[in-house]
């Protein structure tokens, strides 16, 4: 049974804040295939297209028949725990600081023998387990041995918490609380047990409704935040940056114009100023404090969430300038991911299809309800995944894009959205 996590005590302010030492982050190119799948919440291994043999560790040639045709396939991960050990010594700083640490050796039903981080609820060998893949603090996939039936508090396992960004007991900044999506995110975070949710709002003279409801929640504090105003971002970072554990950047400007449908660049500029430059300003101001606290106790700073769009992958011409601004934000989010990596901060990007809001009023269904999007964010934080494509439209577009991005470009150009 995992001990449910207790609310952590207040930190002693005279003590130095522990900094992050990453676990080993080197992986060969082929091995990054596991990371790719884990980033989306799947456990995949290579399977030989010719003889069917499952490969582990990842490689270039089938160990059975020498075929180079190895395809990544999702794995159920069922297997037998052959042995477990408790690490009491490690030369690696990450593990040294977190001893004792449980490891296991599992013989997968699919064939290979794998080394795993072992969940505390797994019994002594021999025992049936289920192996999954998670991203560790270095942002690389590692294999985890899970119990077949976990207790209600299994997410509080010390090892598993290092792989996830659970909002429970944490302090979160949501950059725009004036939209339905923002309010749904706030409610979902409160429900997930967040200690404090700072909710940003700009242009206080523009009343959108709904802000009063969420500001009534005891965990919620409204904070002025205008992502177009560098000073606003700087001042808020100065006030609360040192306490934020999770940043959720949902602020966006969304208009429905391509190139010819709106003269002038002011609308496109407004989209870029929040969707792209807003992210840049926010990352410059909140990034350093987030990184500095990434190993700060049980509720360390842990994640940065960006609300992007599936249109970031391939431009949706009716919302052409919006798509371009989300593509710019996506690229910058990749830069942010690289810069956050040394501190072990996870950058999570969401690529939803059309959300059921006023700017997508004329988009045909299916559209994503704000509450569904909010749930997807909380789930991503809990699962420790990196790239989420919530909703049917997003999943379908992703499939088409991965299959052949040029074909998707044509389909979207012909209005095949």
């Amino acid at each position, binding site marked *: 049974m995992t001990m449910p996590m207790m609310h952590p005590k207040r930190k002693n302010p005279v003590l130095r804040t522990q900094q992050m030492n990453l676990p*080993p982050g*080197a992986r060969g190119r082929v091995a990054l295939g596991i990371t790719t799948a884990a980033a989306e919440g799947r456990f995949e291994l290579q399977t030989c297209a010719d003889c069917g043999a499952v490969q582990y*560790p990842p490689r270039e040639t089938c160990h059975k028949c020498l075929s180079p045709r190895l395809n990544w396939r999702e794995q159920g991960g069922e297997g037998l725990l052959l042995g477990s050990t408790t690490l*009491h010594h490690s030369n690696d700083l990450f593990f040294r600081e977190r001893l004792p640490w449980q490891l296991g*050796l599992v013989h997968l039903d699919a064939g290979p*023998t794998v*080394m795993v981080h072992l969940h505390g609820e797994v019994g002594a060998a021999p025992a049936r387990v289920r192996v999954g893949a998670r991203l560790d603090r270095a942002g690389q996939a*590692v294999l985890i041995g899970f119990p077949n039936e976990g207790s209600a508090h299994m997410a509080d396992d010390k090892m598993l918490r290092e792989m996830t960004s659970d909002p429970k007991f944490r302090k979160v900044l949501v950059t725009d609380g004036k939209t339905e999506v923002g309010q749904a995110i706030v409610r979902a975070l409160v429900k997930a047990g967040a200690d404090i949710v700072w909710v940003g709002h700009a242009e206080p003279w523009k009343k959108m409704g709904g802000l009063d409801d969420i500001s009534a929640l005891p965990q919620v504090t409204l904070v002025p935040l205008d992502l177009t105003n560098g000073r606003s971002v700087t001042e808020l970072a100065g006030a609360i940056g040192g306490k934020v554990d999770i940043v959720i950047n949902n602020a966006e400007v969304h208009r429905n114009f391509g190139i010819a449908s709106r003269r002038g660049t002011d609308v496109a500029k407004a989209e870029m100023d929040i969707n792209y430059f807003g992210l840049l300003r926010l990352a410059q101001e909140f990034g350093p404090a987030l990184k500095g606290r990434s190993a700060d106790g049980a509720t360390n700073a842990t994640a940065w969430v960006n609300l992007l769009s599936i249109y970031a992958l391939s431009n949706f011409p009716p919302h052409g300038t919006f798509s371009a601004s989300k593509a710019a934000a996506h690229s910058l989010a990749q830069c942010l991911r690289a810069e956050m990596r040394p501190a072990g901060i996870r950058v999570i990007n969401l690529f939803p299809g059309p959300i059921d809001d006023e700017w997508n009023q004329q988009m045909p269904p299916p559209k994503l309800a704000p509450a569904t999007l909010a749930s997807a964010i909380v789930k991503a934080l809990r699962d420790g995944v990196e790239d989420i494509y919530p909703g049917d439209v997003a999943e379908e577009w992703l499939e088409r894009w991965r299959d052949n991005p040029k074909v998707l470009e044509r389909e979207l150009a012909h209005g095949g959205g």
Partner: protein
Amino acid sequence: MARQRLSYAGVAVAVPVTVPYVRYSTHSAHWFIGHAIDALVKASGVGKDQIDGLCLSSFSLAPDTAVGVTQHMGLSPRWLDHVPTGGASGVMCLRRAARAVQSGDADVVACVAADTNHIDSFRQTLGSFSNFARDATYPYGSGGPNSIFAFITANYMRSFGAKREDFGRIAVDQRSNALKNPNAMFKKPLTLDEYMAARPISDPIHLFDCVMPCAGAEAFLVMSQERARELGLPHAVIRGAIERHNAYSEDPVMVLGGWRVDRDDLYAQAGVRSADIDFVQTYDDYPVIAMMQFEDLGFCEKGEGPAFVRSHSLTCDGSFPSNTSGGQLSAGQAGAAGGFLGMTETLRQLTDTAGSRAVAHAHLGLVAGFGMVTYDRCLCTGAVILGRPA
């Protein structure tokens, strides 16, 4: 039907050299290699320029290579090999050097295993040891092979009823041997209580199950028996030798060692049975592996290892002398030189230069090699039976 292999008749193995071990050194591996070659030259009467074959084993040459070493040492060999296979390198270097001498490709081959040990050598070696270690074990913080052998040990204990005390017997007896070895790093006796009470590393592996990494070198010469007699060098002969890599790869966890695959061939080459062996130098990176070598080299059946160690004494003067130098567990592991430790000690036993460690009636010695944990087990295994010249 396997082809009849060429025997090793006519090959002499001589001049065991140990460059004393130190825990840490600021020198590079080349310093230890240089000392070893110098000692070989001085002890053998063979001039440096007459060494025309070089077989090297080292993990700490980078960015240099065996080729670079020839220039560094001022050698001009006509036969050169680098066999950086750790614990199996003694056996593997000997097999290659012997064939070179037999074919006439070289007359005098210096086999040298050497490694330095800097303060953070251990961690740096781990990170880039192999693709599979980088991708599938290093990320788990296992601190080198400790956790891998913890799994193997735990599985073995569960499968065959071995107890920690059984492994302790190996550690304790080898420590007794080490006390008679002036080159051994450990100088104090070890009791079973101390072994049992030692702090856990990665359970069931505790402190005295692990070797101590250090810096040092081991070396020997391979030449024709004719040449050895000309030089007046006491020497041993090779009665048989085997080598196998990535054996039993289908086994989910190591239970069987690769020696098992070819051990009948080993004894057939030598024309002897396991009962004829007078002492055994196992590769003792962990006691469980030493125990497996007793089984897989034919001294008892699989699973009988615990009973074997309970009913035998492994000391130099015991019923089954094993790791008479103290083994790596008590002498220390100077990187790849750990793979040569059993070889030089066997040469000393067979040339009567083992001092107070001498095994009575030492005529046939078996040296086993085991090395290269690239993922979840050692991939290289090998064994050699050495004897006295006829």
